């Protein structure tokens, strides 16, 4: 019908508004991957030997592994020898002491992205709350704001390369303890070549005085980005962490293979929110980011809690399953996701909830929106181990289709080895209704506003649990995704 065509046109006309290239000089390693490259990365980062050896072990293992093919995505395989594994903005070589030392062009980039890097802007923009930001531009961390205030609270928030040098005991104890070197193909690659990312340690009983935030941006051509994030919440600690990602428009596909590890000890809580807006490719599926990410939380302590919240509108190919290992008794995992795919985007995403401890509980709410010729799959595993007495899971996955050329698929896997476990699963697939659109228009809304309102309503369960700062950004991102002139 006519108005569905119009919506589809709107979506197809959407522009990627983060698609600008920052023109600054950068130091980039030549393409290719071998032990020498890994040694060079490790040397640039001034790493101790144990770290280099850890990387080399991972690399050796990676060589024996094969790229997974089970996901419902179809893409040209990456030539791992044609990628550069390290790129640093040149002017940032001498690690900036303060924000004033940062290349103004970088600041401009972040401002274009709407990232309030400058502290005063941040305070002006966000009422009553603070956000500390670590910005990763290509491969290096650019600035970590609010360091002093965090140090006073005993919180460590720094680039992971700095943590390796300054806090080796913590890194040695926890790095790879949630996602080991040999976990999967992309994780192994990340272990070998990760260049930066954030490290967070919240000491016992400390509630982090502000939200922590990292922005990742791939800028250089033919560069892979391999961040490594490690967050440890010690007993009784609380932290809320936000992660944002963008990349400029490029014709070629760029690889992003990150690893995020969360360690949650007894009575601790980590909230991890992601707004992912990597370049999705053009309307013919040319270019875009391959987003192959391993994210996992280990709820080691009793009554520990993790929640993953994600709003994903970017990437050509997404392969991502933020997971929770619910080891401690009474621990709890949550996964709230909104994924938007348009044009030729493909996403195979979901979560894994591994219940090991007694009285563990998990909630999964997944909202998928597909338009254009996009294909989206929800793939989720809920496993109840034999000792997981009275474990509970609730899963709800809803798909919304715009137009008739896109697809939504659901692959729920359930493994139950304990008879006292309870599982609920609800799934719906619906098309945005002509009736709903006409109803809103009859009440005075433009077609575009009507689509936004209906889609936002569809995502409400997830938007309601987003941190406030992100809720605004998520809304804006959704609007941009669905933007376009009404035909």
């Amino acid at each position, binding site marked *: 019908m006519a108005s569905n065509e119009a919506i589809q046109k709107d979506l197809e006309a959407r522009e990627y508004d983060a698609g600008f290239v920052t023109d600054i000089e950068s130091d980039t390693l030549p393409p290719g991957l071998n032990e020498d490259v890994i040694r060079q990365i490790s040397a640039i980062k001034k790493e101790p030997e144990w770290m280099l050896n850890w990387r080399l072990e991972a690399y050796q293992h990676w060589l024996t592994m094969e790229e997974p093919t089970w996901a419902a995505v179809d893409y040209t395989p990456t030539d791992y020898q044609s990628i550069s594994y390290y790129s640093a903005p040149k002017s940032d070589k001498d690690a900036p002491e303060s924000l004033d030392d940062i290349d103004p062009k970088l600041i401009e980039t972040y401002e274009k992205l709407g990232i309030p890097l400058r502290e005063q802007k941040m305070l002006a923009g966000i009422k009553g709350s603070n956000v500390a930001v670590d910005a990763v531009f290509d491969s290096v961390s650019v600035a970590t704001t609010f360091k002093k205030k965090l140090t006073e609270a005993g919180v460590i928030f720094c680039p992971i390369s700095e943590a390796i040098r300054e806090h080796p005991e913590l890194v040695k104890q926890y790095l790879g303890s949630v996602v080991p070197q040999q976990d999967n193909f992309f994780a192994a690659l990340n272990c070998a070549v990760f260049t930066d990312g954030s490290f967070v340690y919240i000491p016992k009983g400390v509630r982090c005085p502000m939200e922590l935030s990292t922005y990742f941006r791939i800028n250089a051509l033919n560069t892979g980005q391999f961040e490594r994030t490690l967050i440890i919440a010690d007993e009784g600690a609380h932290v809320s962490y936000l992660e944002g990602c963008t990349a400029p428009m490029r014709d070629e596909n760029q690889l992003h293979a990150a690893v995020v590890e969360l360690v949650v000890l007894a009575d601790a809580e980590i909230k991890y929110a992601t707004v992912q807006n990597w370049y999705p490719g053009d309307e013919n599926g040319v270019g875009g980011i391959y987003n192959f990410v391993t994210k996992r939380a280990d709820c080691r302590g009793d009554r520990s809690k993790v929640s993953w919240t994600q709003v994903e509108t970017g990437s050509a190919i997404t392969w991502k399953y933020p997971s929770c290992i619910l080891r401690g008794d009474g621990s709890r995992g949550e996964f709230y996701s909104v994924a938007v795919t348009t044009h030729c985007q493909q996403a195979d995403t979901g979560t894994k909830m591994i219940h090991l401890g007694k009285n563990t509980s998990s909630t999964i709410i997944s909202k998928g929106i597909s338009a254009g010729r996009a294909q989206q799959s929800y793939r989720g595993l809920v496993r109840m181990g034999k000792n997981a007495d009275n474990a509970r899971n609730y899963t709800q996955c809803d798909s919304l289709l715009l137009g008739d050329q896109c697809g939504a698929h659901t692959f729920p896997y359930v493994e139950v080895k304990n008879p006292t476990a309870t599982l609920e699963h609800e799934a719906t697939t619906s098309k945005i209704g002509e009736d709903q659109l*006409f109803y*809103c228009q*009859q*009440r005075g809304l433009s077609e575009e506003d009507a689509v936004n*309102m209906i889609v936002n309503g*569809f*995502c409400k369960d997830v938007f309601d649990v987003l941190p406030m700062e992100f809720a605004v950004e998520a809304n804006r991102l959704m609007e941009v995704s669905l933007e376009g002139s009404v035909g």
Partner: protein
Amino acid sequence: MLVIKDLHVSVDGKEILKGLSLTINAGEVHAIMGPNGAGKSTLSNVIAGRDGYEITSGSVIYKGDDLLVMSPEERAWAGVFLAFQYPVEIPGVNNTYLLKAGVNAKRKHQGLEALDAFDFMRVVKEKAKLVELDPSFLSRSVNEGFSGGEKKRNEIFQMAVLEPDLALLDETDSGLDIDALRIVAGGVNKLRSPDRAIVMITHYQRLLDYIEPDFVHVLANGVILKTGDKSLALKLEEHGYDWVKENL
């Protein structure tokens, strides 16, 4: 206010309205009755601007402008309101939020400032009383989980807030029990005004006991067969539609 001349409308190649003409002035209440499939809902949907109707000839002039070239939202801004026969559910979208967006879009079009949340809520609470709508409905998702009667009440409540110049009520009485009908009709009566025209589409004379029309039209075979006052509705009730056809 509304002048329809020789309107021909097809759906999927089948002609539904076959040269319908009708004039409606401000302050008047019209009832359109007729057998199933006569084209009553087609008429209201065409006036409101719904997709899927092919207008093959004829004209619809509203306040001197060609209504047929306007988008649905432009018609809404110009004061056209349709109370839906089957109000649509929109999960997750707050009832008041939708209405506020509608009201402010209309105000913007009229060059007025947007109402802030405080002023808007004051208006909304006042209008909710017209149809005895429980305030809890204001914060619920649009029509989601509403009973049939609640949905129809919500339509008239929206009409009260949007203050249209031309209100089309498409079978607003169907599915209502006698108490709900009394409340809904009471709300409509309070909205009667010398500046406002109301067109009721209905199968039943019963509604007209509560809302007294100035004119009753019989719509059959895609045209207005007969026009009269409210006594026509009573005759229809007694003799059926065939009686109209026989007496032409």
